[in-house]
């Protein structure tokens, strides 16, 4: 039977340094809140089972799948999305740069999620090994690259000592 959203709530979240206050229906997923309500369309949707990681964002520092949370659950949290990775002046992060240099993306649809998972990894482990990178990215699907160049890019970003 249908469940009409009869309740909504006002939430406040900080995203990439900006605080947003919005009223959201209870049934809205965090990913759709980001994309549809705030126009932060860098975060993508690739599945409906929490399997692909295209929607990965950082929530209070941890990489989470924003399709597996309701927007109301993010009330009070601090989020970072792909739009928040480059510097104020538009300078790419070392990881973004490494994806570019190592051809770690083709269609670019998985890329925001990959970058967010890898950013979270590099923050807790600045110099990951190849296996550590693969483990950290196992929740992120890429259908274009076969992962080899992605793993290479993340390892290279770590070797540069960036982040």
């Amino acid at each position, binding site marked *: *039977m*249908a*469940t*009409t*959203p009869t309740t909504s709530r006002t939430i406040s979240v900080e995203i990439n340094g900006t605080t947003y206050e919005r009223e959201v*229906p209870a049934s*809205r997923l965090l990913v*759709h809140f980001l*994309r*549809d309500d705030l*126009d*932060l*369309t*860098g*975060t*993508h*949707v*690739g*599945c*409906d*089972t929490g*399997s*692909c990681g*295209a929607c990965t964002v950082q929530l209070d520092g941890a990489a989470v799948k924003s399709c597996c949370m309701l927007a109301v659950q993010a009330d009070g949290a601090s989020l970072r*999305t*792909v*739009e928040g*990775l*480059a510097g104020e002046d538009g300078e*790419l992060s070392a990881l*973004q740069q490494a*994806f*570019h*240099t190592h*051809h770690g*993306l*083709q*269609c*670019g*649809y*998985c*890329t*925001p999620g990959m*970058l967010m998972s890898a950013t979270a990894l590099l923050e807790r482990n600045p110099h990951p090994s190849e296996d550590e990178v*693969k*483990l950290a*990215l*196992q*929740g*992120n*699907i*890429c*259908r*274009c*690259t*076969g*992962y*080899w*160049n992605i*793993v290479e890019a993340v390892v290279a970003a770590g070797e540069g000592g960036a982040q």
Partner: protein
Amino acid sequence: MTTVETEAPTLQKGAAMGQSVPRKEDGRLVQGQGVFFDDIKRHGMGFLHFVRSPYAHAKIESIDVSAAHELPGVYGTLTGDEVAILTDPFFQIAAPPGGHVKDYALAVGKVRYIGEPVVAVVAQTRELARDAAELVTVEYEPLEVVVDARKALQEGAPVLHEECGGNMSYTGVWEWGDVDAAFAEADHIVSIKELHFDRFNSTPLECDGALVEYNRGTGQWTMYTNNQFPGFAAIMMGPALRVGLDKLRIVTQDIGGGFGNKITTHPQLVVCCLLARKLKRPIQWTEWRTEFHQSMSHGNERWFEDTEVAVKADGTLLGFRTKAIDDAGAYLRYEPLGGVIWSQVAPGMYKWRHLRVEFTQAMTNKAPCSPNRGYSRMQQLWFTERVIDIVAHELGFDPVEIRKRNYVQPEDMPYETPNGCVYDSGDYPRALEMALELVGADRIEERRAEAASRGKLLGLGIGSTLDSGTNNFGQSQLVNPDLQFSGNNEVATVKLDIFGEVVVTLGTTPQGQGHETTAAQVVADTIGCDVDSVHVRAGHDSYWNSHAGFSGTYASQFAVTGLGAVKGAADMLAGQMKQLAAMVFQCAPDDIELAEGFARIKGNPEAALPFMALGAIVNANNAGFPDDPPTLNCRYVYRPPFQVPDKERKFGNLTLTYSMQIHACVVEVDPETGVTEVVDYAAVDDCGTRINPQIVEGQVMGATAHAIGAALWETFAYDEDGNLLTPNFYDYHVPHALDMPPLKTAAIESPSPFTPLGTKGMGEGGGGGIHCICAGIQDALRAAGGAIVTDSHNPYHRVWELIAHPERSRENVEVRSK
């Protein structure tokens, strides 16, 4: 590790061409600034959700949408009854019986697979549309289901499309050479009862969708979408909607992967168009993952029955005969083109001259098929490779030697196959050597013993494939002689604008292949500037006048058709720039050279006009010019040199180029569990001249990953009631980072003599992976009963079966020797 060996190159490599120029596309994509269709919003747009069939085969008794309409925020609905009034059925590529299929944008009267769209509901939000769809009641009367193509063709099977008089959509006999004589001459005849190529697809990470607007004043629709073959979509949609193609504007920018799976979205786009007009508001449709898996573009599943192979005592292969049964699923969206596309590579890479294929396509209660990376050729190549390895296994030949003996040799190039296709260039034996070296094949027996000491079965596998690129659409006439399609075309424009901007538009719809970058490389070298100064518009737009009937990105052709068009337009522009500079300097155009962003007199660098001056003269300062100045706005249509194939003999050149891939792998099988681990992997590719080696290698990697996935984990498995058992990424296991083996790549460059730049299309060469893993498993299992691998898909439980009951698979094979 990358090794490159180059045949005598025809192309003088430029400053940009031949270099791994980092991609222009990346800047926006790594910052989340790409524009995918779902990122586009319009005021007042309504979100569309489909009500889909829960039955694989059923009559629709009644549909009641009233409860949905009562929900506040619901804008409206569309049913099959309305679609049947407002549109005509889609044009069918098939001749009768398949030509009788009536295919509409929504189910009319009957549903034929689980997940088929029955009703469309539009509401204010995504969530509401989904909830409202739940309120639609549809009553069905279930019918008997058939999910096996072999059974679907039998007498008494439930019939999907009554108009067709049965489930057969296409059948034809393809025979070349003298097959009977070949079998008479053979010393051994190897027969293989049944081989099966499994159903899967490349599952791009972004699902299908569109934002569609209707302009009531002009009657025009604009579709921001991710359809990857706008030329085909328009041809399908125009007649269905009863409008001319000028009314259909298709726009793409960034597309999240395609792999052929996004060619046949025209039914859903028609639904969006009808609703945009009916509800007077923009329509947003985004498919969910489960919907994609249940309803979109599965790859063709194929059976090969009663195969016989004629072999000489020395291992020379003379020919084969087989009966192919192709499963098209419930509707013929791009089919029965799969019924001819395979013949682009009818003999695989081998010199056998006597071939007979009885090809029959069946319709079943499963999702419709349409192109999938390696479309229809992958199945045929897998078949030829499997045959080679089974023959080697049964007659005791070395799989390497039998390949080398039977490969088309470099001195045979260009080589005309028995059915008139022309393999343009390449050195297959040398590529095989390279691949074997990369996986350390010389130490294989040592490694086998070492693995055995750990209780593992180790095997070496080879997969040799061709990626035939740039279709001659005349081949469609081989499955339906009445069709009026032939040749191919692609369009580009290159212009010099008022401030000297070099602007390029393409008809293609890239989904990650880096067209903006490679097009810029070609233009930069042709008109004498750097890559950064060339601005390539992202995507396709029917309003740009840079498209033709076959525009799109599919079938391994951009490096030929797309870049051929770019090169042609850039050459035209270079000629005009020289002409204009010659007018200014009062010299002959031949005295002008274009370099570093200037048109200058050769040998006199002082006399130089920057591109900006040329652009300004033509666009803003043209009065008083003595002659007609050139336009500096050049449009070029690239048209490959094709003839219409001979329909009687089913003979002719069906594709312009043949890239080659040799994959080799070492696998270890755990006999306790059947789990296969790929421990070494190499892919050697030859796609002629490489404009951007890094992008080429990226395509090789991606295609390899698809193949490994298909060989080991990915399958669209159905139960007998027509339920898809793998309807999402939870059950349909695509490879993850941890699944990927170490990979070595290498390249040979044998330029194509037939293309403007010596390039060959190459995006779909991954089939090699399926073959080499099958071969690797069969080789590993030699020490455990000698099972024969008869399926393209070998998950652990199937391998375990092969180990537990090798005799069952062996019953499939028989050798008769004279």
